[in-house]
C-alpha cells in the first residue's frame, strides 16, 4: 500500500472519530456529520485512484456508474422519507451495508483462500453480512407493518439457538478443513439469511429499535472483518467504531425500556396474551371536551406536554407546537417531557418535534423533569400510554414493572388524549386513565388539538 494512500486513510479515520464525537452534542452534531461524510468521500476517492494496479478503463466506468447509481438512489430515499418513517429507513440502509459485506465475502471465497486467517474473515464476513441483511429486511417489514405475525412456535428460541450453533459449527468446519467448494459457501450464506429471519421474526414491535441498533452494530463488525481481510485500516477502525458504539447505544436503549439485551433477543415480550392484572377492576374514567380542557390549561401556571408516537401517527406535531406557543404567549410555562423511548426509536420524538420547529431547550428528558410533575398544574398526554403507566412503579405482575416512566400521575391535573380506550403498544391496561385527577379527551390527536387551539384563541 502506497504511503500517500495510508496517510489519506489515516486522515479519514481521524475524521470518523472526530465526526462521531461531534455527533454527540446538539451544537456540533451538524458539523460532526459533515466531517464524517468528508472522511468517507476522501477514503473512497483515494481507494479508487491511488494504487499501482493496471485497471482497464471499463472497470473504472463500471465503478463510477455503480457509485453514481447508488448515490442517486440513497440520496433520493433520504430526501423523500417522512420523519415518522426514519427507523424503517435506517433499517433498510443497514441491510444494504450488510448485503455488501456478504457479497465481498462471496467473491473473495471464489478466489484463492491462502490461509486460515483469510478463511476465517471471509466466512464470518459472509455469515454476519447475511444475518444483518435478512434481519434488517424483516425489521423493516415489521416497522412498516407489512410483516405482522409474531411467531409463537413452542421451543422457538431453543430451535433458533440450536440453529445458530449449527451455523458456527459449519463455519468452523469450513475453515478448519480448508474446504473450497462453492456449494459450501452458498450454504453458509443461505444459513445466515435464514437465521437473520428467524432471529428478528419473533421479536415484538416495541423491542424493534433495540434490534435495529444491534443489527447496525453487526454491520460495523462485518465491515471491520472485511477490513482485516484487505488489511485496510480505514475499514477496520470505521467498522469497529460503529460496532462498539452500536453496542453501547443498544444497551442505553435497553435501559430506557428496563429490558436486558438477553431478554430482547431470547425472550418473547411481544405481548399477545392477555396480561396479568388486565381483568382487575380499575374504576371508571371521566371524559372531557376541548372547551373544558382549554379552560384548564388557560388558567394553569405550568403545563407539561407528554408526546407519544400516537402524536406522530396523527401528524399532529405542528398543532402541538402551535398549542405550546399559544400557551406561552398567555404566560403559561410549557415544557415537553420526553421519555427516552418515546416514538419508535430513542430520540425519535425529538426529531419529530424539531421538524415542527419546537425549540429543543423545551424538550426535557425524563430524569430532569420527573421531580417537576408534582408542582405542575396540568399534564397533557398525547398519544402516549406505556411511558406514563404507573404500573411500572407499583404492579410487580406487570410486564413493564420496573421500566422508568414519566411520573405524570403526580401532577395536579392530567388530560389524556387518546383515540379509544385500547391498550398501548405493550398491550397493558393503564391505571393512570382511571385516576381521579385524570380526564380523558377522546379523538384523533390532530383534531383534538386543533379544537383545543381554537378554544384557547377565543379566550
Amino acid at each position, binding site marked *: 500500500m502506497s504511503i500517500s494512500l495510508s496517510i489519506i486513510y489515516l486522515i479519514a479515520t481521524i475524521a470518523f472519530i472526530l465526526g*462521531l464525537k461531534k*455527533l*454527540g452534542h446538539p451544537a456540533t*452534531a451538524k458539523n*460532526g*456529520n459533515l466531517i*464524517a*461524510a468528508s472522511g*468517507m468521500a476522501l477514503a473512497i476517492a483515494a481507494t*479508487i485512484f491511488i494504487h499501482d*494496479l493496471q485497471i482497464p478503463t471499463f*472497470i473504472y466506468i463500471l*465503478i463510477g456508474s*455503480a457509485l453514481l447509481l*447508488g448515490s442517486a*438512489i*440513497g440520496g433520493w*430515499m433520504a430526501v423523500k422519507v417522512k*420523519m415518522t418513517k*426514519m427507523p424503517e429507513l*435506517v433499517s433498510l*440502509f*443497514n441491510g*444494504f*451495508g450488510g448485503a*455488501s459485506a456478504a*457479497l*465481498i465475502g462471496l*467473491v473473495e471465497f471464489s478466489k484463492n483462500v491462502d490461509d486460515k*486467517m483469510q478463511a476465517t474473515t471471509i466466512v464470518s464476513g459472509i455469515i454476519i453480512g447475511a444475518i444483518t441483511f435478512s434481519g434488517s429486511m424483516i425489521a423493516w417489514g415489521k416497522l412498516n407493518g407489512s410483516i405482522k405475525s409474531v411467531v409463537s412456535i413452542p421451543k422457538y428460541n431453543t430451535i433458533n439457538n440450536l440453529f445458530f450453533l449449527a451455523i458456527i459449527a459449519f463455519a468452523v468446519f469450513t475453515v478448519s478443513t480448508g474446504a473450497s467448494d462453492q456449494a459450501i459457501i452458498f450454504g453458509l450464506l443461505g444459513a445466515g439469511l435464514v437465521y437473520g429471519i428467524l432471529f428478528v421474526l419473533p421479536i415484538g414491535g416495541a423491542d424493534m429499535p433495540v434490534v*435495529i441498533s444491534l443489527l*447496525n452494530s453487526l454491520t*460495523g463488525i*462485518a*465491515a471491520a472483518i472485511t*477490513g*482485516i481481510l484487505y488489511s*485496510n485500516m*480505514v*475499514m*477496520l*477502525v470505521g*467498522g*469497529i*467504531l460503529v460496532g*462498539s*458504539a*452500536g453496542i*453501547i447505544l443498544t444497551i442505553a436503549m435497553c435501559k*430506557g425500556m428496563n429490558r436486558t439485551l438477553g431478554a430482547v433477543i431470547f425472550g418473547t415480550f411481544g405481548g399477545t396474551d392477555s396480561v396479568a392484572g388486565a381483568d382487575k377492576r380499575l374504576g371508571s374514567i371521566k371524559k372531557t371536551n376541548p372547551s373544558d380542557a382549554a379552560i384548564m390549561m388557560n388558567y394553569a401556571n405550568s403545563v407539561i406536554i407528554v408526546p407519544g408516537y400516537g402524536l406522530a401517527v396523527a401528524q399532529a406535531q405542528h398543532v402541538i407546537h402551535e398549542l405550546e406557543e399559544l400557551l406561552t404567549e398567555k404566560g403559561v410555562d410549557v415544557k415537553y417531557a*420526553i421519555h427516552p423511548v418515546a416514538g419508535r*426509536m*430513542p*430520540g425519535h420524538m425529538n426529531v419529530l418535534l*424539531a*421538524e415542527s*420547529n419546537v*425549540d*429543543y431547550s423545551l424538550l426535557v*428528558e425524563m430524569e430532569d423533569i420527573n421531580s417537576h410533575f408534582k408542582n405542575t398544574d396540568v399534564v397533557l398526554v398525547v398519544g402516549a400510554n406505556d411511558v406514563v403507566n404507573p404500573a411500572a412503579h407499583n404492579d410487580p405482575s406487570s410486564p413493564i414493572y420496573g421500566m422508568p416512566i414519566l411520573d405524570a400521575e403526580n401532577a395536579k391535573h392530567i388530560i389524556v388524549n387518546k383515540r379509544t380506550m385500547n391498550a398501548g403498544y405493550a398491550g397493558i391496561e393503564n391505571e393512570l386513565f382511571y385516576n381521579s385527577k385524570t380526564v380523558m379527551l377522546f379523538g384523533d390527536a390532530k383534531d383534538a388539538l386543533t379544537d383545543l387551539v381554537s378554544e384557547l384563541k377565543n379566550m
Partner: protein
Amino acid sequence: MNGLIQFISDNLQIIYILILAIFVGVEVIKNIPAVLHTPLMSGANALSGVVVIGAILVMLQSDPDDYFSLALGFIGVVLGIINVVGGFAVTGRMLQMFKKKN
C-alpha cells in the same frame, strides 16, 4: 496453544488497533443525550457503509473477464454507497431541524 500464540504474534498490530478502536468507540458514545440517539444511530449506520471500500477493491482486483466478481462487486458498490450517501444525507436532514430559537 502454539497455534494461538503464532496467530497472536502474526496479527499483533491488528489486535492492538482492534482493542484501541473498541475503547474509542465506547468512550465517544458514552453519555450522549437521548435527544441525539436517532441521528447518532443513523450517522453510525452511514459510517458502517465504509464496507463499500471493500466492494470497490473487489472490482479493482477482478480480472476484466471475471464477470462473476465484477457483477457481485458492482451490486456491492451500489448497496454500500446507498448506505453511505443515504445515511449521511438523512442524518444531515434530521440535524438540520435541531435549532435553538431566540
